[in-house]
């Protein structure tokens, strides 16, 4: 399932399509203010692009781009962005996740600060969802066995 496919067409097409998927994912995240979309949807699309890479190029190559450790760190990091923005509001003297008070920090009117706060939160959600999607797919497709161990075993046996 995670082995490199022999079909050059699949690999070439995936390589061409991936940047467009990622740009579209960033667009969906960033454009959530004006159109349907947002962190969850954009994060899933972004995660799908990494999953496509894993399917077409195999585990070894995919681990260079996005390892299971990085995915775990990114998922925590995304949640940290969300709760960090909430905590920042608390430090600035308003309620948790009440972005209006960030206006003094960002030097804009409160309404604009709320808009930017929403954007920051959506980015956090997007990162977390992307990393979790990749992490779950990684675990299920490998059955939880990380190839690093296998390589160690292989050299140990020789």
């Amino acid at each position, binding site marked *: 399932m*995670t*082995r490199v496919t022999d079909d050059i067409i699949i690999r070439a097409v995936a390589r061409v399509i991936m940047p467009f998927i990622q740009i579209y994912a960033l667009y969906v995240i960033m454009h*959530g*203010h*004006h*159109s*349907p979309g*947002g*962190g*969850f949807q954009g994060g899933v699309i972004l995660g799908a692009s990494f999953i496509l890479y894993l399917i077409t190029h195999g*585990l070894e190559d995919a681990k260079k781009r996005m390892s*299971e450790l990085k*995915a*775990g760190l990114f*998922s*925590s990091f*995304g*949640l940290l962005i*969300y*709760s960090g923005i*909430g905590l920042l509001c608390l430090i600035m003297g308003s309620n*948790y*996740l009440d*972005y*209006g008070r960030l206006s003094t920090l960002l030097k804009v009117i*409160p*309404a*604009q600060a*709320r*808009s930017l*706060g*929403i954007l920051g*939160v*959506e980015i*956090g*959600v997007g990162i*977390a*969802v992307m*990393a*979790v999607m990749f*992490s*779950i797919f990684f*675990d*299920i497709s*490998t*059955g*939880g*066995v*990380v*190839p690093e*161990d*296998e*390589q*160690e*075993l*292989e050299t140990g*046996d*020789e």
Partner: protein
Amino acid sequence: MRFLALIAVIITGIILIYGSVDMPDWGDPHSPASLHVSPRYIEKTMEETATPNMVTSVLADYRGYDTLGETTVIFTAGISCILILRERKRRKKRKINPKNPTNHV
């Protein structure tokens, strides 16, 4: 025991159905949600959050806690998959076929 569980499920179902009778009709303009919550969001969203998409402003601003919880749920799902499926330590001792290293079942 199974019979008891069935009775508990039926009673809970009856209570839930009884409770749903009191709920306002779908799209009822006189329901509490339509009377003051929705108009507040519709009228003040642009003024307060400068976000044209009302869904986004409700999701991430007015109901920010809820979305934080949703993100935590997704994060928990990822962590659970790691905890259940990943077995890094135990496999170290196992010998595998060097000719076919990806065959791990």
